[in-house]
């Protein structure tokens, strides 16, 4: 069990009622309910489409989860995704070979990750602010330096890569496979590599981690480079799936959706707790929800409303089960 293995006494006490289990239970209930009431919900085609529709969100959520587990947050994840991929498409439009464009795009993303990491680790700007500011800064920089339009279409010159994200392997859509691969890699990274363990330790108690000799600052850099890389990958899959990249998603509420998934899954914002399994549970719940709502033809605004209420309820339940008190709550812990 993920939460139990993180080794906190408090976790074990409330393990039966951990948010992850509650959400899983809600997901199962919703699944059964939709399966019984909505015709065609359980059709294999629909289930695949269900997972596929939230795969991109899931991939982004994994990147976000990694930073949150390390006691950070990456609000710039959407901006990184959109702007880097927009630049790649822009280069493709200008006739740059695919591999070269992707490589340059990736270098750009690594730079973004390093800058964010530097701001958080060395300039000691709270992650919420550093990434919030970077959201607009990345957008502005890319628009000034690289791309001068909002909406980019992948040109036909991009050959097979043009519809990479829309492909199938053994009947499974590429985005689902991409989600699975990223999830697996992230899980292995978190549980079985030193930096992964370090990041979890850092999220649990940054001061002690530092005293214990963990290079916390380089680890933070790594954390943001990874989340930026994941964002880039998600962006490539997304763009090749639909053939466009709209840089306006930077200003949309998509980043809130990503946080919603992460938090719904039971990853605590103060860091140190939770794993990739939580993200998968959160993603599935949202997937089932969105799919059911679409089948029921519930309007977009009402879906948003319900999503917000679910998020609120999840936080309330979490707080009731794992209360904070005045004596132990941290300063500046918002």
């Amino acid at each position, binding site marked *: 069990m993920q939460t139990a293995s993180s080794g906190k006494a408090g976790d074990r006490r409330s393990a039966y009622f951990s948010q992850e289990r509650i959400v899983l239970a809600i997901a199962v209930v919703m699944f059964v309910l939709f399966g019984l009431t909505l015709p065609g919900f359980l059709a294999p085609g629909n289930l695949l489409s269900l997972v596929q529709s939230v795969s991109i969100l899931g991939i982004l959520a994994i990147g976000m989860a990694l930073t949150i587990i390390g006691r950070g947050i990456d609000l710039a994840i959407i901006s990184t995704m959109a702007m880097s991929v927009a630049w790649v498409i822009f280069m493709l439009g200008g006739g740059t070979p695919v591999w070269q464009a992707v490589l340059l795009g990736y270098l750009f993303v690594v730079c973004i990750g390093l800058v964010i990491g530097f701001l958080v680790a060395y300039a000691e700007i709270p992650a919420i602010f550093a990434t919030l500011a970077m959201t607009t800064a990345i957008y502005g920089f890319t628009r000034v330096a690289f791309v001068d339009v909002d909406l980019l*279409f992948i040109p036909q010159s991009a050959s097979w890569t043009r519809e990479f994200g829309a492909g199938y392997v053994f009947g499974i859509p590429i985005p689902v496979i991409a989600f699975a691969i990223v999830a697996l890699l992230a899980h292995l990274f978190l549980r079985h590599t030193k930096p992964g363990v370090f990041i979890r330790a850092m999220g649990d108690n940054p001061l002690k981690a530092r005293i214990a000799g963990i290079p916390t600052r380089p680890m933070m850099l790594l954390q943001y480079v990874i989340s930026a890389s994941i964002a880039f990958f998600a962006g490539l899959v997304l763009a090749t799936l639909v053939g466009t990249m709209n840089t306006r998603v930077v200003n949309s509420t998509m980043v809130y959706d990503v946080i919603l998934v992460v938090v719904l899954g039971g990853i605590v914002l103060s860091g140190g707790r939770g794993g990739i399994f939580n993200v998968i549970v959160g993603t599935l719940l949202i997937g089932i929800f969105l799919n059911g709502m679409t089948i029921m033809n519930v309007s977009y605004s009402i879906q948003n409303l319900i999503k917000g209420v679910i998020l609120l309820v999840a936080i309330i339940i979490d707080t009731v089960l794992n209360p904070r008190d005045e004596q132990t709550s941290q300063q500046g812990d918002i």
Partner: protein
Amino acid sequence: MRKLINIIGGAAIALGIGMTAVKAQDAGFDDGMSTKFYESMKGKKVVFVPISIGMDIAAGFAAGMQRMADQYGFQLQIRDPNWNVDQGVQAITQIISEKPDLVVIQNVDMQAYARVIKQAMEAGVRVLQVNVKATSNSTAHVGIDWYKNAETNALKLVEKCSPKNGGNGKIAALEGTPNNPTNFIGMKAFNDVMAAHPEMTVVSDQAADWDASKAHSVVSTVVRQSPDLCGYFGLWDGQDSGMAAAIREAGLTGKVFVVSQGAGEKAACEKIADGSYDFYVSYNIRELSKHINDAIAVILQRPADETLQPFAIYLTTQNLTKDTLTPSSCWTLDEIKRGY
């Protein structure tokens, strides 16, 4: 940076052309109107407030106006609020106090700028609205009949899918942002048509927030839910590329009749050619841009103190299908900049 260079370059060219133009007139030929025309243009100040200059159609308008400004020797300024309504209002308020000869405003929606447009008119600043018209009238409006475009598309779907014509009548609609004017005017047309054709069944009417990836996930669910869907109603090609991708994934290209509309940028023609869109109403920006320039020319020729009756120009649209497509059906930004 590139833009800055463009602007500087543009200014330099403008200066050059202006000089030659002056010389040409000195030595040239006055047909009785031409000198008067050039003089009424020269040295005027026109300010353009787009939604965002990064938007393809706004960039198209700007390129067209810039070409005109360069040739006729008036000054064009662009204040880009970049999708931020508040900054747009701020920009227009500021512009009013600068008293230019004309403000060209691309409305975000029907409401946002209505009040400031009224204020501008009251302050004696002439306002040309483009693309979407605000609830208040101004000097002129150059735009698109969103209702008619959507109606054309909806009627096309009826023609293709109505049981009377051998279809099963099952269609779906994909909205953008519900409150957006192009969306709700378009949806009004759609609903009006559907009300007139009760034999049609709308199986899904979902919004995707002008986001291709959301469109993709909505449409892929809908087409799996109703594999026998006959047609899909789209409102903007930027979003509908996601719809087309989902339909292709489901292997339903050619089976689901996709209608869409858009500015007719080159990418749209590619999508029509590869069968993503079966029917496409194009409001060609190249033409719309020309209309805007015409309206500017008309307004600038009238004396500043003359009260103009509000006038409008609505664009004639083109209906594009794979068969009617010609190499010149669509445009690119470069072409407009170069003056095609």
